[in-house]
Each structure stands twice: as C-alpha cells, then as structure tokens.
C-alpha cells in the first residue's frame, strides 16, 4: 500500500519553504528589499524544481501512496507522522509549488511595505499547503490545515484592500469553524476505530488506536451508516466551506477582493482545492454509505452554485469580484463531477481542479496587473485596452478562453469530461451544468468586451504600459500548461487514474444494497432544483 522510495523528497519539498522563511527572518535585513525578493524567489523556485521529479518518479501502477515516510509522533495516542502521495496529490503539489513561485514572483512591485514579513508569510503558507497534500495522518493533516490559516490571515489583513480587516477575520473564522467541526468528525472516526469496532462485534480488525488514514481506509466498510452520516456531515462542513459550496461561499468574495494579488492567486488556485481534495481523499473513500446518501443534496448545492455563481458574476462591476464569483461557479462544477461518482465525472473533477487553479490563478494575476497600474478594478473604468496593451489583451484572451472551455485549451477537456460523467448519472444535472458553461462564456466574454474593445475613452488609460518582462514570465507558464492540458491531457489522466479507480472501488463497497435507493433519491432530488433554478433565472 505504501512505497517508501525517495521518501525524503516530500519532506524536502514541504519544509524547504519553512526553512527559507526562518533563514529570512533571522538573517536578512528588512530594509534590504532586493535580498528579500531574491531569497524568496530562490526558495520558491528551488521548491518547484525539486517537486518536478515527483511527476516523473510517480509510478501509476505502483503502490497507492508513494514517496512515503512513517515516523512515530505521539505513539501513546496513535498519532503518526505519515507522508505519502498518490497521483492526485502529486498534481496538486506541482500546482502548489508552481503557483507558490509565481505568487512570490508577481509581488515584486505590488508589495512595497513590510516586505520581509510578506515573503515570510508567503513561504510559511507554502509549507502549510504542501503539508496538507502530503499528510496521511489525520492529526498531521489537521495541523497543516490550520497552520495555513495564520499566514493567509496576515496576507489579507496586512496587505489587503480597504476592508481587509473584515475580510481577513471572516476568512479565518469561517474556515476555523469548519475545521473544528471536522476535528470532531476525525475524533469520532478515531474512537470508532479504537473502541467501536469491538462494540459491533468486529474485534481484531483494527483496535489499535490510530489516526492513520491508510489504516482507516481498511475499516471504512465496517462503519455503520449512522456513524458515517454524522462524520460525513462534520467533514462536509469543513470541506464545503473551503471549496466553497453554496451556501458557505460568502467569505470568498470578501477574501478575494481584499487580498493582495498573490493572496488571491494562492487562495483561488490552491486553497479552494483543499476542500475538494478533502472530499476525494477522505469523505468519499472513508464514508461510502454516507457519500452515496448525500449525492442528491451535494448535487443540488453544486448546481445552485454553478448557476447562482455565474449569474452573480455577470452582475459584477468589479473585475476581481467577477472572477471570485466565477470561482464559486467553477468549483460547483468540480463538486458536481465528483459526486457523479463515476469514472469520467471524477477524472473530470480532478482535472478541472487543476484547470481552475491555472486559469483562475492567471485571471487574478491579470486583474492584479492592471490594478497595479491604475489602482482601480472597475470594469467601467476601462475600455479599448487592447489598443494600448496588446500583449496584455492577448494573454487575457487566452486565459478567458481557457476559463470558458474553448477546445484546444484546458477548460474544455475538464468541463467536457465532467459533462460526460454527469450525463451518465443524470441528464437533468447535465442540463444545468451545460447552462452553467453557457453563462460562464457570457460573463467572461462580456467582461472582455467591455474592458478591451470599444473606444479608449478614459484619459487615464491612454498611456498604460504593456506587460513587462517579469509580468510576462508570471503568465507564460500558466498559458503553456493551459495549452498542454488542452492538447495532450493524457499524462494528467494517467497520473490521476489510480486514485480515481481506488476511490470508486471504495465507494462501490456501499453500492450493492444501496444502489437502487440512491438512484431513486437522486432522481427525486434532481427534480427539486429545477423549480428553484427557473425561479432564480426569472428574477
């Protein structure tokens, strides 16, 4: 189940940014801006470079978790230090290290105050995020999950926009409430494994108290449905807030709008993925009964998120807010594909996670670039920008196309695969999902039109400089990946395939006796949103 070869690699990747941050705190003078930037870039860059081997060394036909490390941490309560990744986590780690580097690199001119603290927090955040994707022990996972909140809080709170205090504490409290409830779920699972199994007559299956996820996978089938239900609910709150799913999404627009560019990029590209990662890694395989029971409700919420997010995005006057609401819509897609609980849906869901990271990350970068020049994000302030900033307009075009799912670009592959999976489950869902794509195209293209075409009416925009070399290089990697996934997604699918197969296998444990009722429920509930949606659109 676990392969310990190259186990040091993950540790290196996770703790390098932490070490970099500590060195920076101790040795680099806060006035020396060049040294700070160089060091941060170097650390984030090296971190990306050393994470690249994961792509090549990962064996899709090998053990479930590779590059593993197991050490005792708190032996008397069964907490272990377990690192290990599967293909799914490898992809997210690469996304994180790449965007972590870009986040540092894009902040050179945007951040002029308290630079030392800024880069220290960015690097600490990097360690937290990477740790979440590597941890296979619940307590370890939880530690990284929460550690990450602190630097993000400061990034929004110190370097954010005018309402930064409100946005930062809202982000922190929302996520914290979710994660503490998740902790209750974790502890319930832990005690069920330690004491509960014996109580239901399954002694000897795993009474060693442990927080090891790998071990808990093996008892997943034995957990009684009512226990699963409550644990699922606890996990659901934690992960759904992070995704964020409707109606837990209200922190997101605030946090995104107020955060500095790099903060928004990381938030959109990586932090939101933690919610969906949590679902795929923990909720689905550990709680199959509850998952199948929840399909209808999750699908309902996802569909609401898709349509509602898109409609709200369309009404936005602020570019950043528009992109933020588009995230709600896109993450709804990811959730819908995931809870189709079939091969195509889950693959598409995972791929769409990466796509969203790439394209929304890039969109926030792009919005940040004009914001830095004009200190204004209102769409109405712009118009005809294509004339003064042709290069910028080109990049923006490509990313817009990637976001709305134009063939040859990444978004298309992800959305198409999700649609196949969703259609297999229910054509009603597919109908709503497809309408979300249409709306997505509408608000993105409409924004593009208003910002880049038409008369260059605003005097202030007349001599905006086009992208400089550094700004181009923050975007080029993302554009390359967008085309790569769009034209040749096979390597990505290959790497996620083992994860998808295993998750489905584990969910299938609960299928036989549950399948007919679940399908009925789904059919029943899938009709419910129909009424609400039309009502909403009628408004």
């Amino acid at each position, binding site marked *: 189940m676990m392969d310990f070869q190259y186990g040091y690699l993950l540790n290196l990747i996770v703790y390098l940014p932490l070490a970099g941050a500590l060195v920076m705190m101790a040795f680099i003078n806060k006035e020396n801006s060049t040294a700070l930037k160089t060091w941060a870039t170097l650390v984030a860059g090296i971190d990306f470079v050393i994470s690249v081997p994961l792509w090549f060394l990962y064996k899709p036909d090998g053990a479930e978790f590779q590059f593993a490390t197991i050490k005792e941490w708190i032996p008397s309560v069964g907490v272990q230090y377990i690192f290990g990744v599967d293909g799914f986590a490898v992809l997210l780690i690469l996304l994180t290290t790449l965007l972590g580097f870009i986040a540092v690199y894009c902040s050179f001119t945007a951040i002029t105050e308290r630079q030392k603290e800024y880069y220290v927090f960015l690097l600490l955040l990097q360690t937290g995020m990477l740790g979440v994707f590597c941890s296979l022990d619940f307590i370890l996972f939880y530690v990284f999950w929460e550690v990450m909140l602190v630097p993000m809080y400061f990034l929004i709170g110190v370097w954010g926009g005018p309402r930064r205090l409100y946005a930062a504490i809202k982000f922190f409290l929302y996520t914290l409430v979710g994660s503490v409830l998740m902790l209750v779920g974790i502890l319930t699972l832990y005690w069920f494994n330690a*004491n509960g199994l014996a109580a239901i007559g399954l002694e000897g299956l795993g009474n060693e108290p442990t927080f090891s996820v790998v071990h808990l996978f093996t008892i997943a089938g034995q957990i009684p449905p009512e226990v699963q239900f409550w644990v699922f609910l606890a996990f659901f709150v934690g992960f759904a807030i992070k995704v964020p799913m409707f109606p837990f999404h209200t922190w997101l627009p605030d946090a995104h709008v107020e955060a500095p560019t790099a903060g928004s990029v990381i938030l959109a590209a990586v932090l939101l993925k933690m919610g969906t990662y949590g679902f795929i890694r923990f909720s689905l395989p550990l709680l199959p009964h509850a998952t199948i029971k929840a399909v209808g409700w999750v699908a309902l919420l996802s569909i609401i998120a898709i349509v509602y997010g898109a409609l709200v995005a369309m009404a936005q006057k602020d570019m950043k807010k528009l992109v933020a609401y588009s995230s709600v819509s896109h993450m709804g897609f990811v959730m819908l594909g995931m809870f189709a609980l079939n091969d195509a849906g889950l693959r598409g869901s995972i791929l769409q996670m990466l796509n969203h990271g790439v394209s929304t990350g890039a969109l926030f970068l792009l919005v940040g670039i004009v914001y830095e020049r004009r200190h204004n994000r209102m769409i109405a302030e712009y118009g005809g920008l294509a004339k003064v900033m042709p290069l910028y307009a080109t990049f923006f075009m490509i990313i817009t196309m990637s976001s709305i799912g134009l063939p040859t670009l990444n978004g298309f592959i992800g959305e198409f695969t999700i649609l196949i999976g969703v259609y297999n489950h229910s054509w009603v869902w597919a109908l709503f999902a497809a309408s979300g794509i249409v709306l997505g195209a509408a608000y993105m293209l409409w924004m593009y039109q208003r910002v880049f075409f038409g008369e260059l009416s605003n005097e202030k925009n007349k001599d905006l400089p086009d992208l400089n070399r550094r700004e181009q290089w923050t975007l080029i990697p993302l554009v390359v990946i967008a085309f790569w996934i769009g034209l040749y997604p096979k390597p990505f699918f290959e790497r996620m395939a083992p994860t998808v197969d295993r998750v489905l296998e584990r969910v299938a444990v609960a299928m036989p006796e549950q399948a007919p009722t679940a399908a009925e429920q789904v059919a029943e509930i899938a009709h419910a949103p129909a009424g609400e949606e039309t009502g909403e659109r009628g408004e």
Partner: protein
Amino acid sequence: MTLEQFVPFLPEIVLATAGFIVLLLGIPLGRGGVRQLSIFGVASLMVTGVLVWLFGRPADGPALILGDMLVIDNFAVFFKLLFLAAGAVAIFMAAGFLERFGYGGGEYVSLILFATVGMFVMASGASLASLYVGLELMALSVYVLVGYFKLEIKSNEGAVKYFVLGAASSAILLYGISLVYGSLGTLDLQQIRDSLTSVPTSNPMLVLGMVLVCFGMLFKVAAVPFHVWTPDAYEGAPTPVTAFISVAPKAAAFAMFMRLFFGAFASGIDHWRVVLWVASAATMIYGNVAALTQDNVKRMLAYSSIAHGGYVLMGLVAFNQTGAWAILMYILVYAFMNFGAFGFVILLESKGYAGEVIGDYAGLARRHPGAALGMLVFMLALAGIPPTAGFMGKLYIFSAAIEGGYVLLTVIAVIMSAVSLYYYFRIVVQMYLYEGDEEGAEPAEYLRDRWAEVMIAICIVITMLIGVWPAPVVGWAKTAASALGVM
C-alpha cells in the same frame, strides 16, 4: 507515627520554612530587597522540586502518610512540579513589576510560597479534612495577594469581593463535606469510595452533600454560574498575581476536583455528571462570549481563563482514562501559555496599573517585533491553533469527551474555541494591522525587564515544543493520571 513518615512530607516543610524565612528577611530588606528575596524564594522552590522528585515517587506505588491524611503518588508529583514552576515564574515575573510600583517583595514571595504549600496539600490530600485545610491555606494566601497593592482601590475591591465570595463558597464546600461525613461516617477518600460502591447512592443527604461539594469546587475553578468574582478579582489584582491565580490555584482546584470526583465520589457519577455537563457548557459559552466585548486586556484574559476552565471540565464530564490525563495535559499547557500572555501584559503596563486597553497594543509589531511575535504565539496557543501546545491540549480534551460519547458538548466546545479566536485576534489585529500612529492611539510602552523576558522566553519555548513534540508530556501525564486509578 515515626519520624520516617515525615520524610515524604519534607517538600512541604521546606517550603513553609522558606516562606517564614522570606517573611522575616523582608522586614530588614524593606522595599529594596525584591530581587534578593525572589532569588531566595525561587531557590527554595527548586530545592523543593528536587525533594518532590526524590521522595514523591515511592517505588512500590502510592503511599499514605501522616495518618492517611496525604497520599504520595505520581499524580501529586505532576501537580506539585507544576505548582513549583508556576510559583517560580510568578516570582520572577513580579520582581520588576513590584519594584516599578514601589512595593516590597517579602510578603509577596512568602505568600506565593505559602499558597504553594496549600496547593501541595490539595494535590495530595487523601482525606476531605486535609484537602479542605490545603484549600484554605491556598485561598487565604491568595486573597491577600489579590489585595497586595494596598494603596490601589481596585486591588482592595478585588480582594474583598474575592474574599467574601470565597469564604461563602468554602462554607458551602464545608457544609457538603459535613453532609457526606454525616451519611458515610468517614472523611477518608478511599473509604468513601469503598462505601459508595456498597451503599446505595440515592440517600438524599449524601446526594446533597456531593452536589454541595461540587458547587464549592466549581466556585474555586471559576465555573459559571459561580464565576462572578473572577473578572473583578483578576482585573484588580497586581498583574503577576492575576497570572498566578489564573493558573496555579485553578490547577490545584482541578487536582482536588479529580481526587474527589474521579476517586471518592466515582460511584455517585449519575448525581454529579449532569451538573458538570451543564457547568462545562455554560462556562465555555459564557466565558468566550463575554470575552468578546472586553476592552481591558486583563479583563479579557480573565474571561478567557473562565472559558478555559470550561474546557477542562469536559475532561471531568467524560470521566474516563483519557479524560483524566487530558486534564493534566491541558492544565500544564494552559499554565505556560497563560503565563506567557500575562508576561507581556506585565511588560506593557507602562501607564500605571490595570489601565491598559487593547488599543494600547497598536503597532507593537512595528516597534517591538519580538514581543509581538511572542504575544502572537500565546494568542494562537490560547485559541488552540496548531502547531502550538494549545492545540495539543484541546485535542486530548475533545478526544476524551468524544470517547465518553459527549458529542454535543464537544461541538459546543469547538464552536466556542472558534469564537475565542476572535477576541484573541483583536489583540493580534492591534499589534500587526495597526501602526500605532492613528488618531487617538496611545500605544503602550514596552518596559524592559530581563527576568520577566527570560520567563516569557521559557514559556514560548515550552508552548512551541509541546505543540510540535508532545509525546514526552503525554506519556508523563498518562503515568500521573493512572495513579488516580480511574476505571
């Protein structure tokens, strides 16, 4: 009774003697000798620590001494060492503070030592009588400490409130003890335990006795609805005293609580469990919610301390092995993080005593990055955010409650600990997100005091170390709790 029986009692004897010596030395030294007396006091605490380590852990299990009045076991050792550490930190943190405000050190140090003796007896009492005597010795010393700034009206007010309510609660406790004695005919904890297993526990006099003892103890740990004295006493007391009473006497009260309810009254659990459940939930909710609106840092930390008492009570409600050692772990962790936080409050009290509001911390990160970072660590720890010790403490308490099946209580606790983040972060917001030069801002001056800084540094190191590597402390707490013989 032979002289040998007094050997395990040596720590208490040494400590009490040292207390008297300090008291006597304080007279000629007057206001000048704070530092010397502090060093003497801490040295005596260290000597006591060595004695506790040598004689406190009999090789052949728990031993009863002095006519079965005191028990010598690992549980007592755990708490005694904790009290000694708390006493030492309280003495060293106070030195600069007392000098600044022109008060002498003799009475302060000796009262801390006497209170520590009282707490020793509370942690190792094997009879209701000795427990009560220990409690009163501790309480009387602490009343005086709260009123130590005799020229400050607030200090007097706090002391009087604390004394009146404390005396009343002692009376309730004593009445409960007498009812228990009346129904069972013994004060010995072991005998109470044995007779409770054979006698039906539904005797109303006995039940009333147990519940009254429970109320008395709830008062001592400042649980809702017996908490009303806490904010005033904490705010009025000189800050090092606040730090001390929010940690050590509370820990001692919990030690006594555990001796009584995990030991003597264990079979009567059906009668007191629901009381504690309600008290725990109410304490967490009230403490955290009331802290949200406090502008005075000391008062806010007082409410936060009430709330933390509620978390610890969860371990008692859970009533299992995990709960027992989780309480020890939590108290240990809480002691260091709370002392650390109060340490910074002491160093930032530049505008006179008990006068600082949260806004005074504005821009601290700019002017004193080290202090702000330290305070941040303690705020995160108090809120229970990993990788600090605060998280490790909460984790085990919550784990114990879940094991006991108290999911609703745990959900209340986790939600409340998320709420607590808001008020702890009000301080962080001031330190990091404000510059301190806004209109109307009067940032507090940071007063250098080497001794207090060293103590804070120790607290930071321990808080982070337990957060990252809790295994040794967990092991120690487990051993100590197993001496209690729960289940």
